[in-house]
């Protein structure tokens, strides 16, 4: 997940601040929670934010690309605990006795034709 963008936007201050104080660690007045003391919008380093957005897009792009590959052999509705998250019926769903449990997915990973088990009516 290397994307070439590190954290750029850190204006060194210790951001652990009591909610009531209204004063940053550096001593400058900050916008209060309800905005009543200061109508100015919160400050933003625009260039750094653009780079952060780019970093976010890159992270999601990597994820989407891996999803393309992984869904060839593993049902995308099957979670890490092999539970089925689909909102529709599937022949691979095994329901436990507890009606509020999510069904277990009984398909083996590597089944290329898991889609054929999905109920389409």
């Amino acid at each position, binding site marked *: 997940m290397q994307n070439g963008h590190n954290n750029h936007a850190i204006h060194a201050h210790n951001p652990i601040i009591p909610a009531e104080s209204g004063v940053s660690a550096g001593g400058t007045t900050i916008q209060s929670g309800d905005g009543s003391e200061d109508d100015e919008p919160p400050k933003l380093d625009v260039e750094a934010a653009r780079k952060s957005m780019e970093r976010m897009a890159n992270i999601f792009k990597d994820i989407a690309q891996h999803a393309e590959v992984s869904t060839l052999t593993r049902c995308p509705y099957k979670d890490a605990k092999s539970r089925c998250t689909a*909102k529709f019926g599937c022949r691979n769903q095994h329901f436990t006795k507890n009606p509020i449990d999510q069904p277990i997915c009984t398909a083996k990973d590597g089944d290329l034709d898991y889609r054929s088990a999905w109920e389409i009516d």
Partner: protein
Amino acid sequence: MPIVNEGLKREFEWVTRPGEQKHISEALDLADEVMQEIAYALIVGQHLEVDRLTKHCLDNGYTANHILDNGLLNGMAIVGVKFRDNVIFVPEVLVAARAMKAGMAHIEPILSASGIEPIGTVIMGTVKGDLHDIGKNLCIMMLRGAGWTVHDLGVDTSPEEFADAVMEHEAQLIGMSALLTTTMPNMGRTIAYFEDIGLRDEVRFMVGGAPVTQEFADEMGADGYGENAVECVETATTLLDLIKELAA
């Protein structure tokens, strides 16, 4: 500072490639305790906690840059590593993406106020009769990650619901998804409905889903087709450029 959040410490153990370890650990060095809490809550998909912590931090003087970089993105980077290494799968990623969205809901107004506006607005939904949503959800995750505002209508979406959403959100773009050959024609019916109510010229349609092809998209009168989530963003961008060109 070192990782003090026990949960995050455990999560970081999944990052095993030396280069990535260095990169993420350097990023986490800048994350104080509460940023680590945000990162951890995001990784495990606690969207309410991410929502609460992000708001709390903004109210208490943290910059949006700081929260974005050191809380939200650090968490999402670890999610990406875990997904790539098959520790977690698509459902867990989508739950983390929902948590990301909860945090971004507080950050986005600040970005907008500083001139970083959303690229555009898209209405997304799986068509009437179809309950398959994972492809659509991945597209939504990608679009949001790329800076789009997305209104998700969920599954089993009627043409009327698409039209209502377009009017409510003044969107110029609709993304429709279908997984079944039996529901694919509902994409064409939705487009026809927009023609019937005189809204067709106001919006561009992009379509996708496992059985959908470029030929089918052309046949039903869609404006764009994306084979996967990455292409979905590219298609949306192309269509938006086209809309802007036509407006100019």
